[in-house]
Structures are given as structure tokens and as C-alpha cells.
């Protein structure tokens, strides 16, 4: 493609030079001034012209400059372009990878900046009337600019994009891209990424192009850090992965509440992982921080935090006619003080943190956290026996490590889950296990009697009990102490708290409303230790609960750039910029026009100054 003009009609503006010339001539129609004699003037001009033949030219300098400005502006308006190389021709839907791995610095200054540059080039290559859409694929994909032809808007959208600290939700991003492509069938989708895309992405209409960023794959990452109560004090577990092609050695620093506690050397095989455990951590440990020494392309995953919540004894009230499995399972939990009551006995006056009710309900439900097992109220209840497993929310944290597939249930009561309830296990006849957040406390319901199932005999039972009681007995003010970036955290303020403030790792404070039951904190984008502080009405600090946000994502930490991505059935390989694009040059012309304007202004005022200077 040869250089040309996108808007050649604008060259007609060159006709404006005619009025300029006319105006100039009009301006030069000199003012007539009578003088007594022109004798001296005539002699003077003879001398002057003999001395300086360029004087005549100088008087026309302003005209020449003005014509030059007009020429430059006219050319700029005509939008000349030079042929350039771009990966797309025509409208483009740009999918910009905003996942954590894009913060890797193996390409300077970072993969995300390189991706932004590539996106800018694509934008610059868009011709007149060709639309650009920018989708930032982060944990929550967003459309930064939708079907915009204005390059400035697209550039601004790209400038505002920031990479996230979490994994990208590519399925959502592709759904947004598909919607954008549906609006413009001639557009092409461009994925600018390091290639860490899931393999099961849906196909997009039209051809999808892939611009790969990233060069290196060697990255050491902390993918796990946990603190557990051991016999001799808290224990720490650390797991480090190596996504590089060579065995790597690193030292892991462990900092307890800001003080260096231990440094361990760890050798991690290529594409493998290694772990270590540290015993004898101080009893007073609250926040444990692990750091990998040395530098690698992705610093995000070189630091991790774990928060220890020293378990105060939790009072659990178990109301049961007698259930050995349950008693054992609950009583075994660490930090739990179990009180057993027979049904019908009056509830004790001492407060308790959790009421586990086994069997039919005889009283109205008390407030507070409740776990109802095989409970049915006074009203008419029906029993269903279609208890074959229909669905188990195995990705729910409450069912973590709980294998429900071998659980058999004889019969269960039909219980309608309250609105907003999370059904964890559903049989064909109805829900078997659901949990709900109520204003007065958390609620978990097993709709069958434990004696009617083989659940207590399964390995899953103690795990389920531990998970459920762990959820029902939230540690302090926060429901969880280890989150991934972007995870929402529901807070449980004490009843007397009137003010709730979450302080992020960077020091910014987020006040939260306390009126509702469980305020949710969502600004967990930053990695690090957050602190939730509850204040009483007199301003005193009721309690302070830390929680940690870590990347802990082996997929994101594996920064190796991929050679191919799978979109639908197609394998897409990185595109080389071989397509024809057009690089517009009008900004340079406009800048030149501005410069010439400055010169013209200077020349004009210089002339004025010289005239007035001898006054």
C-alpha cells in the first residue's frame, strides 16, 4: 500500500490560501500619508535597496509563514498515512490480558506495558471508520471502550487499564468479546496475552489473532503458606513452585510479626515444587510472612502472608437425644468447648457460640449460629426418599475434601431453603444440605437424620463437621483469614460495634456500614495483610482481626509464555505483524503547524518591537 490520504477532500482547504493572499494584499494597501516631500525618502530607499536586497523578502516573511501554516494544517486535515505493519486489518476487538502473570517484568517494563504498547499499535493502525473495542480480561473482565472510532478515546481507555493481582476470567472476557463481535461482523478479535488461557474457550466469530507477550518462564512462586497449631506451638507450611526449565535454589525467609525468624534454603526441581515446614514458631505469632530471596520476573508471588487466629475456646451447645458420631466429631475439634443437652431441657443462661440441634425441633429457633440436623418444625412435613445425589457444590469451600459420592441417605425431610440460602448438596427429591446467612446468625441445615444415612461412617463426615463448624464459628470478626485477590470477605461485627474499618496493606482505610448483618468487603485486590477494626460507640477498639490476601495461584505463577492458545476447536498461534496497517502522520503535521505559528508570532512581534523601539 502506498502512502495516501484518508480524507483527501480536506485538501480543498488549500483554497483558503486565496483569501489569505487577498487579505494580505488588502493589508498591504498602504495608508496614504501626505508628506512635504518624498525627496529624502526616495534617496533613502535607493540606499536601502542597494544595501539589502533581501529586505523585500523579509516583508513577505509573515505571508510565507502563514501560507506554510495553512499548508501544514490542510495536510493534517487530509490525514495522510504511511503504510505500517499491524496484526489486524479493519475493526478490532482487543482482549487485553490483565491477569497477575502479566505483571511479570521479563519484558521491560512489564508484560502488561508491552501488551498495552501492542494494543496502541493496533489502535494506531485502525483506519477511518474502523472501530476498536478494548476488553480488559481480569478477574472481572470489563469493557474499557466499546466500538469506538476515536483513537483518542481508545488510547485513553488503554492508558487507564491496570493489571490485576488475580487470575483472568477468560470465559467472561470471551463472552464480552463475542458480544462485541456480534455487533460488528467484520471485526477481528485480538488476544494480547502471555497465553495462559484455559483450553476450553468458546470459539469466536471470525478469525482470532493472538499477540504473545513474555519471554521467560523461570519464576519461583510461593503457592502455599499456612499456619497450624502444633503440639509445640504454631507450625508453618510453605510450598514453592518453579516454573522454569532448570532446577532452582532459593532461600525462604520467614518473618514473624515483622521480625526475621528463620531462613531456609530450598531446592525446587524444574517444573516442580518443594515444600518445607517450620516448627516452634512463637506462641504469640499473629502474622507470618514468607519471602523468597532473589529476584524473578514476577515479584507478586515472592511474598506470602498467613494469619494465625489463636483459637479461643468456643462454646458449642449440642442438643441431641444421643448421637455418638456427632458428639465425637464435634468434641474432637480443637478449641471447642462442648456442652450437651437433651431435647426439652431449657437452654442455659451462659452464652454459646453455636447451637447444634439434632432431631426434631421442640422449641422455637433461638438466635445465633445454628446447625440443624434432621430437624423439622411443628408444621406438616413431608419426607422424600429420592435421595440419590443430584448435585454437590464440590467447589464450595464448605465441601472441600468432602466426597459425597458414597454417601447414602434413606430419607430426608422436605425443607424449603430460606431465600439466599446456598444449597450445597441436592438430591433428586430436594436439598440435603444448605447453609444460609441470617441477620441473627449463620444457619446450616442437614435435612436428614444422621441415623438414616451412612454419612457418619464416611471419611467425609469429620471433614464436613470441621468445615461446617469452622464456618459457623467464624474466627473473630472475619469469616476467613486467607483469601485470593478479588475474593469478597464477609465480616461479622460484634453487636456493640458501631464503626467498622478495613485497612488495606497500602494503608488506605475502607469504612464499612455496620447496620446490616454481614457487611462484605470486596476491595481485596492488593496482596498483603488487611486489618479489620471494630470500634465501640465510645471510640474504643473492640477488636482487630487481620486477614491475608495471597496470589497462591500456581497457574498464574507459571509465567511461561505459551506458543498456542485454543479458541474453540482452533489452535491460534502468535500472529506476526504482516498485515497492512496505516500509520497516520497528522499529529506531526499539526505539531509542525503549531511550531510555525510560534515562529510567525515571534516574527510578528519582533517587527512590532523594532518599530516601536525607537519611539
Amino acid at each position: 500500500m502506498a502512502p495516501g490520504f484518508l480524507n483527501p477532500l480536506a485538501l480543498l482547504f488549500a483554497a483558503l490560501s486565496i483569501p489569505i493572499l487577498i487579505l494580505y494584499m488588502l493589508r498591504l494597501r498602504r495608508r496614504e500619508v501626505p508628506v512635504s516631500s518624498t525627496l529624502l525618502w526616495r534617496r533613502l530607499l535607493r540606499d536601502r535597496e542597494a544595501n539589502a536586497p533581501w529586505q523585500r523578502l523579509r516583508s513577505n516573511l509573515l505571508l510565507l509563514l502563514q501560507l506554510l501554516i495553512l499548508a501544514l494544517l490542510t495536510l493534517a486535515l487530509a490525514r495522510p498515512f504511511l503504510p505500517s505493519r499491524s496484526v489486524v486489518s479493519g475493526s478490532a476487538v482487543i482482549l487485553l490480558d490483565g491477569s497477575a502473570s502479566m505483571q511479570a517484568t521479563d519484558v521491560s517494563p512489564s508484560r502488561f506495558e508491552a501488551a498495552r504498547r501492542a494494543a496502541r499499535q493496533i489502535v494506531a493502525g485502525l483506519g477511518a471508520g474502523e472501530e476498536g473495542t478494548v476488553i480488559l480480561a481480569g478477574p472481572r473482565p470489563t469493557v474499557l471502550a466499546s466500538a469506538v472510532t476515536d483513537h483518542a478515546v481508545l488510547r485513553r481507555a488503554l492508558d487507564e487499564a491496570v493489571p490485576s493481582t488475580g487470575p483472568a476470567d477468560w470465559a467472561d472476557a470471551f463472552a464480552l468479546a463475542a458480544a462485541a463481535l456480534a455487533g460488528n461482523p467484520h471485526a477481528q478479535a485480538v488476544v494480547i496475552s502471555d497465553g495462559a488461557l484455559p483450553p476450553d474457550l468458546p470459539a469466536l466469530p471470525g478469525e482470532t489473532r493472538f499477540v504473545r507477550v513474555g519471554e521467560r518462564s523461570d519464576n519461583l512462586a510461593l503457592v502455599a503458606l499456612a499456619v497450624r497449631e502444633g503440639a509445640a506451638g504454631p507450625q508453618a507450611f510453605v510450598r514453592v513452585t518453579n516454573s522454569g526449565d532448570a532446577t532452582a535454589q532459593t532461600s525462604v525467609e520467614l518473618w514473624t510479626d515483622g521480625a526475621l525468624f528463620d531462613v531456609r534454603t530450598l531446592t525446587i526441581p524444574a517444573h516442580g515444587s518443594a515444600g518445607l515446614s517450620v516448627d516452634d514458631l512463637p506462641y504469640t505469632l499473629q502474622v507470618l510472612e514468607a519471602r523468597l530471596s532473589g529476584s524473578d520476573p514476577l515479584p507478586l508471588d515472592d511474598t506470602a502472608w498467613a494469619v494465625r487466629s489463636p483459637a479461643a475456646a468456643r462454646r458449642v451447645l449440642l442438643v441431641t437425644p444421643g448421637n455418638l458420631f456427632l458428639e465425637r466429631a464435634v468434641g474432637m475439634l480443637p478449641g471447642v468447648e462442648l456442652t450437651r443437652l437433651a431435647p426439652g431441657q431449657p437452654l442455659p443462661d451462659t452464652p454459646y457460640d453455636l447451637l447444634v440441634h439434632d432431631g426434631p425441633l421442640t422449641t422455637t429457633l433461638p438466635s445465633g449460629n445454628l446447625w440443624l440436623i434432621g430437624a423439622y418444625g411443628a408444621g406438616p412435613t413431608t419426607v422424600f426418599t429420592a435421595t440419590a445425589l443430584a448435585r454437590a457444590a464440590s467447589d464450595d469451600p464448605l465441601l472441600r475434601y468432602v466426597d459425597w459420592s458414597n454417601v447414602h441417605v434413606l430419607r430426608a425431610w422436605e425443607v424449603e431453603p430460606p431465600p439466599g440460602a446456598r444449597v450445597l448438596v441436592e438430591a433428586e427429591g430436594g436439598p440435603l444440605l444448605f447453609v444460609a446467612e441470617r441477620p441473627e446468625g449463620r444457619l446450616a441445615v442437614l435435612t436428614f437424620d444422621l441415623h438414616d444415612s451412612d454419612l457418619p461412617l464416611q471419611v467425609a463426615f469429620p471433614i464436613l463437621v470441621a468445615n461446617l463448624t469452622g464456618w459457623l464459628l467464624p474466627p473473630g470478626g472475619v469469616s476467613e483469614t486467607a483469601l485470593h485477590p478479588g475474593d469478597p470477605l464477609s465480616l461479622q461485627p460484634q453487636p456493640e460495634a458501631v464503626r467498622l474499618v478495613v485497612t488495606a496493606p497500602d494503608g488506605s482505610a475502607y469504612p464499612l456500614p455496620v447496620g446490616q448483618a454481614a457487611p462484605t468487603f470486596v476491595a481485596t485486590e492488593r496482596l498483603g495483610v488487611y486489618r479489620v477494626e471494630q470500634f465501640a460507640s465510645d471510640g474504643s477498639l473492640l477488636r482487630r482481626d487481620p486477614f491475608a490476601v495471597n496470589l497462591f495461584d500456581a497457574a498464574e505463577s507459571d509465567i511461561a509464555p505459551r506458543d498456542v492458545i485454543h479458541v474453540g476447536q482452533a489452535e491460534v498461534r502468535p500472529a506476526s505483524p504482516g498485515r497492512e496497517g496505516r500509520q497516520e502522520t497528522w499529529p506531526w503535521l499539526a505539531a509542525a503547524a503549531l511550531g510555525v505559528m510560534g515562529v510567525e508570532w515571534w516574527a510578528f512581534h519582533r517587527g512590532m518591537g523594532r518599530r516601536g523601539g525607537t519611539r
Partner: protein
Amino acid sequence: MLDAALLNRIGRLRLVARHIRAGQMQGERRSTKRGTSVEFADYRDYARGDDLRRVDWNIYARLERPFVKLFEDEEDLAVHLLLDGSSSMDWGGDGEARGHGDTETRGSDDGEVRRKGSSKWEYARRMAAALGYIALASGDRLSVAMLQCPMPNAQCSMSTLKLRGKGQTLRLFDWLSGLQAAGTTDLNASLRAYALAGGRAGLVLLISDLFSPTGCTEGLTALAARGHETVVLHLLTPDEVDPPLSGDLRLVDVETGEPQDVTVDGGVRALYRRRLEAWQDELRAICRTRNARYLPVTTDAPLDRLVLHDLRRSGVVRG
């Protein structure tokens, strides 16, 4: 035309010609004639035919020989007062070139400061009146002429006035106030014509701005050849010395009507002043070789100061 106080002060002055002494004669010699004035000059022996009234009887009584007292003869001086009557003389002053007042656009865009001073023509006539009065008052023969001779080689008909005696003062003033500057004047032709027209060789006082396209060299040469002693009173207005102009202008010559395009800025104005000085130097040199004196005069100089101080210092008047 001139106020009484000024007339009183200049009435005692007399015009001085450095070389011309005798009335009709052109001479390099010292005054030859002994006359009848009261100024004593010398004694000489009585000769036959001498007027007995001139014999100094006191000497005769003492020496017993007759001696005749000799007195200076009072020669009159032919004074020619030539006034340039071209329209370029009708310029400047508060009146702003009467006759062009309507089209006057001299005020420049940045607000011109008007210069004080009378019109060049007015000033020239007053100067002529003053010098003419001095001549009449000292008994010289005065010829006044206004030079208006448009074509270089045409026969010039110029209005002249010949006067003698203090009693003619009013006539001179009336005649001067009736004059009107108009048209073009070729100075060379006018001066040559005046020189050829004859008249006693004497002191020529030329009042002009010398804005003549062909210059005035030949005219001055002709005057010198005729034996005249010339004083060139080069009269300019302050506007002409330092023109208050700026911008892109078309200058129109009020005398010839010829336009001249010029873009005036500070540099051009400085150049103009240098050019004017060079021109005046050139004129001074021309005058020096033609038995003439050159005196630049600007109209912002007070007339009494000009006559009583400047002209006296340069030796044009004495007394």
C-alpha cells in the same frame, strides 16, 4: 505679522555682507568712497575745488594749513530676499498644511504627539518679514521675490517687490501676507532666472526647504556668478527632521503628488535621519564653494531667538 516688541529689538540690527561693500560696485577693495556721513574717517590736504565746508578750521588755525575732514560714505546694500513658494513650504505646524487639512491623516495609529511650531510657510514669511524689516530699517535696498517656477527651463514670472526705507515696512508686510505657496518650484530654474534678471549684486537671502528634485546647485552657482553673496536659510519642520511615521505607508508628495511606498520602522527612521544629515552636509559643502553660507533652521525655533541669536552668531546680522 511681527509684534512690536520684536520689531523694536531687531530694528537696531543690520544685515552683513562679508564681501560686498559698494552700492553698485562689486569689489574686493576696501570701501573707496568717502562720503557724507557723520563717521570720521581721515584728513587730507585741501585741494582746489574741495568744498570749503569740509575744511577743518580748527586745524587750519593751529597749523595754518587747510585740511579737509573725510567721512565714511554710507553705502546702501542690495538685499535680495528670495522666498521659496512651492507647496512643500506650506507644511507643518498646528495648522497642518493648510489646503490639505481635510485629507490630513498624519496621526499614526499609536497616537502621535503633535509637535509645536508654526507652519513652514508661516514661519518663512515671518522670517522674511523680520529680515526685510532689518534691511529696510538699516536703509538697504530690498528686493523681495517669491520663487515659483514649475518647469526647469521655462521663463519664470515671479512676483517681486522692490522697497527702500523704513517707511515701506507695512507695504512689505502686506505683500508678504498676501503670498500663497502653491504648485511646484524648480529651484535651479528660479534662481537662475533671478540671477539673470539682473539687479544689483548684493546679499541674497534664500528661504527654502530645498526640496527640489533637481537640487539647487546650479541656481547657487548662477547667483555666485552674478556676484551675489548668498545666505541659504534651509527651513525644515521638526516633522521633516524626524518623521513621526510608522507602518506600511504610501507617502504622497504634496508638491508633485508622486507616491512613494515605504515601510517605516525604527531602522528606517534612523536611516532617514542619517540621510538627512548627509544631505545637509552635502548642501553645506555646495554652499561653501559658491560664496554662500548655509544655515539650517527648524520651525520650532522661536523667531526672535533665531534672528537675535542664531543669525547674529553666524554673522548674517550685526548690531
